[in-house]
């Protein structure tokens, strides 16, 4: 309650900020975190669909359903957060000049991530992964790193774009 009051005041008065920012100097960016989170969204969707095939759910299956939904939401949000950080902190004018459609791609990822939260739809998960793979491709190209596509060696066994180191 006190925090929401402070937030309302902040909106009116725009308090200054102090940064507890982590990524200013480390330069460690890697889209694999977003890619793995997107794979997790697909896997969690698969598990939810398996539960959906059952005629009725036991108490423990209902609890599992609840956990799967929660995790799917968290991982979809994680995809969005990780992509936003790379887009906002790593991409600068030279990268945007090389890939002028990056803004549009990132916006599509935001929408696709939200769609995965709103639905239990494998196709939407695949779309999210495909977009994040494309984003990863842009990222590695801006760093001059070659890439390859391979099927991830674990469920959901979907194609992922990896750096070819």
């Amino acid at each position, binding site marked *: 309650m006190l925090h929401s009051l402070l937030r309302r005041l902040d909106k009116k008065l725009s*308090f200054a*900020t*102090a*940064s*507890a920012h982590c*990524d*200013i100097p480390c330069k460690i960016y890697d889209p694999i975190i977003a890619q793995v989170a997107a794979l997790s969204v697909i896997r969690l969707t698969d598990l939810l669909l398996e539960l959906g095939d059952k005629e009725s759910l036991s108490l423990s299956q209902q609890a599992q359903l609840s956990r799967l939904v*929660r995790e799917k939401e968290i991982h979809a949000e994680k995809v969005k957060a990780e992509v936003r950080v790379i887009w906002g902190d790593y991409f600068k004018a030279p990268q945007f000049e090389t890939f002028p459609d990056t803004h549009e791609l990132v916006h599509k990822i935001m929408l696709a991530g939200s769609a995965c939260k709103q639905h239990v739809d494998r196709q939407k998960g695949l779309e999210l992964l495909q977009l994040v793979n494309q984003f990863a491709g842009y990222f590695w190209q801006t760093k001059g790193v070659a890439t390859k596509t391979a099927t991830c060696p674990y469920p959901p066994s979907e194609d992922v774009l990896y750096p070819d180191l």
Partner: protein
Amino acid sequence: MLKLLRIQGRSMLPTLPPDTYVLVATFPFLSISLNDLVVVNTAQYGVIVKRVLAVDSSKTTFYLCGDNIAESVSSNQIGPVSKAEVLGKVIWFKKPPRTALNYLT
């Protein structure tokens, strides 16, 4: 004087999650000790909030670090901070309601 600031970033997790509001005392002659949370204006990183890791009383300089070591600028990267760079000390804070997303890495 007192200042109310909002925290951005995750380097002070779990003490100060993003969107925590901190009350900062900016009185002159403020005593700063080990483990205090301080707000510092650095040339390299701008206004940052960190914890005092060590105090060099002979030169009145401080070494700072984030509570979330995995994601913070290290003490070495920040370097010694002079008293003049310290804007104030955090004397109170209010965290946002705890949700999973606040704490996600």
